[in-house]
């Protein structure tokens, strides 16, 4: 089976520091993979490269048949909008937009007709149990509710891949569990998921496979391809 995500011999350097070294990494469609590692091990850099937010210094990044490393800025933006959903530790919602407007944003930027986008947003808000907050501003929501809004926004354009960077890092345990359940539910419906975390328990619970990075390289399992 062709992997959905394929990083081949990827190196990423920032000035003198090397974030990733000759990393080769694959993720299959519908898979849930946890990427673990200490702070500075290259976890977030890996996510950024998959999302096209950053470019590798060398090596190739292919996602869903797209050579992401070769995309222009505009091409990378379109790629993210159409195929990637991103969830962040601190939610990254726009405080001056309502919940509904935050969720609608990716589809509105893509030019989806308003009516169709609103139907999809309503479905997502209902599924994530935040529909009563549609006209509320993020600052008035709890952390868990904000992360639900962020998940809804990430799913708005039905992305092939969901990238979650420490999605429970800013939440209390109970709320974190709740968010994790949501992500697991999504994975069960076929959603490919890459989860970055430094919490081994979380990784073990939600991922079918755990990849540990140490100093920008895969620590386990041994071998050329981290699967």
């Amino acid at each position: 089976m062709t992997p959905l995500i394929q990083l081949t011999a990827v190196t990423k350097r920032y000035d003198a520091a090397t974030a990733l070294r000759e990393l080769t990494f694959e993720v299959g469609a519908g898979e849930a993979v946890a990427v673990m590692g200490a702070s500075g091990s290259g976890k977030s850099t890996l996510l950024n490269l998959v999302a096209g937010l950053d470019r590798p210094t060398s090596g190739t990044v292919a996602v869903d048949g797209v050579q992401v490393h070769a995309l222009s800025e505009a091409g990378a933006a379109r790629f993210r909008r159409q195929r990637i959903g991103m969830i962040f530790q601190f939610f990254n919602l726009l405080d001056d937009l309502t919940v509904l407007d935050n969720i609608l944003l990716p589809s509105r930027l893509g030019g989806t007709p308003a009516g169709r986008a609103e139907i999809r947003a309503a479905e997502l808000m209902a599924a994530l149990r935040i529909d009563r907050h549609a006209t509320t501003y993020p600052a008035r929501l709890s952390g868990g509710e904000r992360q639900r809004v962020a998940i809804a926004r990430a799913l708005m354009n039905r992305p092939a891949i969901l990238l979650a960077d420490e999605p429970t890092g800013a939440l209390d345990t109970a709320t974190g569990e709740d968010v994790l359940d949501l992500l697991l539910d999504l994975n069960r419906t076929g959603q490919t998921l890459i989860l970055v975390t430094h919490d081994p328990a979380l990784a073990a619970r939600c991922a079918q496979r755990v990849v540990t990075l140490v100093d920008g390289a895969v620590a386990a399992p041994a071998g050329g391809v981290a699967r």
Partner: protein
Amino acid sequence: MTAILAGVSRRRLTAVVVALVVLASGTASVLGLGLLAASDAPFDHAFAQQSGAHAVAAFDPSKVPATGLAMRGASGPFPQATVRPTIDGFRLSPMTVVGRADPLGPVDKVSVDEGRWVRGPGEIVLNREFAGPRLAGATLTVDGRPLRVVGVAYSVSRTADAWVSPQDLPHPQSLQMLYRFAQAATEDQVRAGMIAVTRGLPTGALIGSRSYLSVRLSANGAIAPIVPFLVAFAVLGVVMSVLIVVNVVSGSVVAGYFRIGMLKSLGFTPGQVVAAHVVQVLLPAALGVTLGALLGNLLSVPLLEDAAQVYGTGALTVAPWIDVVVPAGLLTLVALAALVPALRAGRLSAIEAITTGRAPRAEHGRAAQRLLGGLRLPRAVTLGLARPFARPARAATMLAAVLFGATTITFALGLGSSLYLIEDALLHDRSAPLEVAMMRGPDAVPYDGSLLKTIKDQPGTAHVVGIDRRDVTIPGLSGSLPMTVFDGDVSWTGRQLISGRWFRTPDEVVVPTGLLNSMALSVGDSTALEQDGARRTVHIVGEIFETDDAGLQVFALDPAATATRYEVALTPGTDLETYRNTLQTALQGRPIDVSLNDENGRRLFSILLGMISTLTVLLAVVAGLGVFNAVVLDTRERVHDLGVLKAIGMEPRQTIAMVIAGVAGLGLLAGLVALPAGLALHRWILPVMAAAAGTGLPPGDLDVYTWDRLTILAASGLTIAILGALIPATWAARTHPAPALRTE
């Protein structure tokens, strides 16, 4: 000090923006105030500089020898003659030539602008006012003798049209003496001085004399109309400079609140924080103001050179006090603009400063976001349109900056267009580009109608009108005044009426505002005219736009007039130069001049247009910098949001659209408000300028804002805003999302 320098280095862009804004403001202020200050009694300054002649006198050499005229404290006697030089076969206007070996002397120190002074026979130096482009380096022929033009000089006392070696005037028509008197403030004092210096001379030795006061009156008359628009520009420039500098500087300090908070948390005292931030903006401001003053002085050189020609004075320079006051004023302004927010920051706790410095409060602009988000516009655009509501104070100052810039453009375009029409009306060289003049004197052409027939028969002739000039007197008005008499329709010549209509019969006249005001007359009144001892009553049927002779003129119709010159209009498509040469050839051998209406007359218009354009561009740049700064501050504050938007798929062109939309609404609004403001300023300043010149204005000269122009001008605010935001918008589009997402 380390923290201060680190702050400047860390916030390089802010420092550059502060320096640029202060530079542009300094340039605009030095230029505006420099031109304004130069218009304050430039004649008196130049007169004092050249030790101008209080009286220029001409003596008859047959009645008094040169040795009998020389006296201490005076210049002269110089041989003088009125000649009619020719160049390439064309006769020039008569010129007064003075034989003078040295441009200096106790009185009338003539300044040599170009080339050099005459060194011997066969050379001539032209007065700047007489020298045209065709004459530079040319050889003139006077009474069959060639005279090479070796220089261009200027005498503020206007003592000659040209100077030659005294050896070139062995038989002068008169001897010129230039006097300065201890008391010369009034005509009476100048007259008394002349009586004193001519006491004891034979009767009839003095042919005539001219007081400097008449020259001064004429020079000041040229300056007066220019001052109101310079005042308008200077005021606009200073107000805009203050506004933008305050906005930029205070904005830059507010943008540094996060750092202020960090410094406080490290133990900086409020006093140290205030000092650090004031000095941080003063350093780039000092650099900007130094360069601005320098640039202002450099830019003012050609403009002041031109102004000196308009004013009829010697070289003008930026007054030294401006080079002191503008930098000092701007630096004080910068310090004050930085001090207020820095003091506020000094009083904040470290946490408060960090929180305030992070981002604008999200509550601002939410309603606008919701409202605009519902519009059927691209989302990037609606996101941008709502931006000004998040920072209302910053948006208000940006709006004001663009408003002032767009008002300046609106006013400047109207002013330029009006001046163009005014020049047309006064010179009427466009409507009647050719003049055929007959020589007076013994070889004058008898008026037999053959000349008129030759002109009319010439292919390409559209209109011809014959003109005669007579001297008339009006009872109650001292002295005579010129009456221009036309032998036919005059409406096509380009002359304009302020009110009333053109004459239809010989007993109807039109007169300028100057005469109406002097005689307390109005259109519709009648007045008596005396010519050659005969008195007749004429009806004033119109007020003509004319400023020559201070408007003390009369224009009348006399179909039987003996024309001494003709004004000619050509049919469309006729080449002026070819027409002129053909007519010249047809009239060869006859003492008739076929001349183009003097193109040099347009010089005043070009000079004013140059001043208007330079000041307008500068002020528009200042306004654009205001926008630039606001957008830079805004995008820096929102860099994290920008990262988020990019992470969820905002493309670079959408980022640019969002940033541009953030200023476009304000720009459009400012442009729309600037239209009536600019129009009102134009309606106010133009009549003030005209009044200063002692005339009214033809209504048509004010109606210059056509719909197509208004449409373009309505977009001027939008244009300033877009141009100001374009560079930071491009920077925003290039922002890498990954580092932006990590930004606090």
